[in-house]
């Protein structure tokens, strides 16, 4: 699996003018093959700017991005090839749908790759199955679908390129709890099946806690933390100072400890919290 190696990249908007602004500064990061890396940070912390560098939509002002050891900007003409290997699902991807049928829209990426019709067909059907879209929907117009279905169709449009690295920017934004659940489980299942490296940008600490192996915390354009989920959430107070909310269960345990209850707070899912809390209440009782 491909590895992205980001070396000290800085991106400056409007360089040299009085409006000069460092969107990200000296960010380094190396993905681990097959991991799910969660990216969190406050609005304006540079998350979106960072990920747009990874598939060559933005070019860093300074620093390098290596994909399998190769500088992606070595031959700027070949940047499209990088975009096929590093798939990117933007926020509200359903707004990018444009073809008259879902099938054609999912086929847009593979067609741009120059694949033959049989291969395109195989990929479209596989991607549709990956996101749980019914075959019957493929011949429908994108505008006849529900919000959640549109979102999944748009994600399928990126999956159909079979990227080695998949980046998702707030894939659950604006969905109801059920739609959110569907998207999150499709990401998890897809990863389990393909072993793709996934970068997930999210506001929701709960989502990150459930899915991620490592977490990158951005603050004001710089890397504030980059560590395993356990270690990052163990620094809950620092996260709160940055204006980030820790998962609700972690917060409850933190409050309990403040009140003098002797309990470890490196907990971020409901299941883990149950394990910690049950002994305090005298263990599980049969009823």
């Amino acid at each position, binding site marked *: 699996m491909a590895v992205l190696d980001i070396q000290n990249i800085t991106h400056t908007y409007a360089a040299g003018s009085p409006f000069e602004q460092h969107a990200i500064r000296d960010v380094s990061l190396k993905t681990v093959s097959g991991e799910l890396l969660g990216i969190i940070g406050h609005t304006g912390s540079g998350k979106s700017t960072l990920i*747009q560098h990874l*598939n060559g*939509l933005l070019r860093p002002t300074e620093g390098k991005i290596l994909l399998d050891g190769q500088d992606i900007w070595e031959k700027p003409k070949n940047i*499209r090839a990088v*975009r*096929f290997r590093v*798939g*990117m699902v*933007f926020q509200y*991807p359903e*707004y*990018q*749908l*444009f073809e008259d049928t879902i099938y054609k829209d999912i086929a*847009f*990426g593979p067609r*741009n*790759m120059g694949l033959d019709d049989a291969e395109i067909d195989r990929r479209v059907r596989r991607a549709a199955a990956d996101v749980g879209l019914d075959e019957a929907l493929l011949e429908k117009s994108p*505008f006849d679908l529900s919000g959640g279905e549109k979102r999944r169709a748009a994600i399928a*449009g*990126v999956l159909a*390129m079979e990227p080695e690295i998949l980046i998702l920017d707030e894939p659950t934004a604006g969905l109801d709890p059920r739609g959110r659940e569907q998207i999150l489980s499709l990401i998890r299942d897809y990863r389990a099946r393909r072993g793709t490296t996934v970068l997930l940008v999210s506001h929701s600490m709960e989502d990150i806690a459930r899915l991620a192996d490592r977490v990158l915390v951005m603050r004001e354009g710089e890397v504030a933390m980059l560590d395993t989920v356990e270690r990052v959430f163990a620094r809950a107070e620092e996260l709160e100072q940055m204006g980030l909310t820790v998962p609700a269960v972690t917060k409850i345990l933190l409050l309990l400890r403040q009140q003098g209850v002797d309990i470890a707070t490196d907990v971020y899912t409901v299941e883990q919290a149950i394990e910690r809390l049950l002994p305090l209440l005298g263990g599980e009782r049969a009823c």
Partner: protein
Amino acid sequence: MLNDITLGQYFPGNSLLHRLDPRMKLTLTMLFIVLVFIPRNWISLCGAVVLLAVTVALSRLPIKLLWRSVKPILLIVAFTAVLQIFYVTGGTVLVQLGPVKITTQGLNNAAFIAVRIACLVMGSSLLTYTTTPTALTDAIEYMLAPLKVLRVNAHEIAMMMTIALRFIPTLVEETGKIMSAQKARGADMESGGLIQRVKALVPIIIPLFVSSFRRAYDLAMAMECRCYQGGEGRTRMKKLCSAPRDWIALAVYLLVLAVLIALNVRFGSVLN
């Protein structure tokens, strides 16, 4: 690339020009356009240029800004000037290549028209540089009000203009997002022939249309929910009011107009 669009190009300031009543500025701009087309000789044209220079000085805008407004139309200026050089005959022949002649009269006309167009663009961009889009639409609404007798609803026209202006930055941002999303799927917008490039725009334009309609419906809904009724009986937060300076400005412009006409009569025409 998309950041270069200067449409809502208001440049904040507090100069005399910024403080003029937008209605008067609109009138003066129209008057200036007339002023630029009146001169028939160089002395008279100089008068118009001086008036423009004084107005620019009073606006306290950086000269660079005005240059920026002229830059995009330089091609048109050059094109018109070249046409003049080749089509106008008369005066001494300077160069002759077969049927093509370059004459002194041609050069004279070309220079005259180039100056004229440059003045025109700079003068009218002063209006948008010193007036906020909302003030401008208010002024247009006020000035179109007499058309009510012809059943023209000035308020609705002004409201449409305000809404259109309001959504330009939103649409520019949206276009950027959609372009990025399609590029991420391998859309190629930088290479290929003309037809291919036009085709490459489809994945951008269709989502843009769809979202524009969605926004329009949402906005219409929101306006109806707040019982928006149109012009009748609406009051304003910022009222337009004219001050003596507005009338002085108008007087100056009219005076210059008279002077230019006099100069035309006195020195005759140099145009062919």
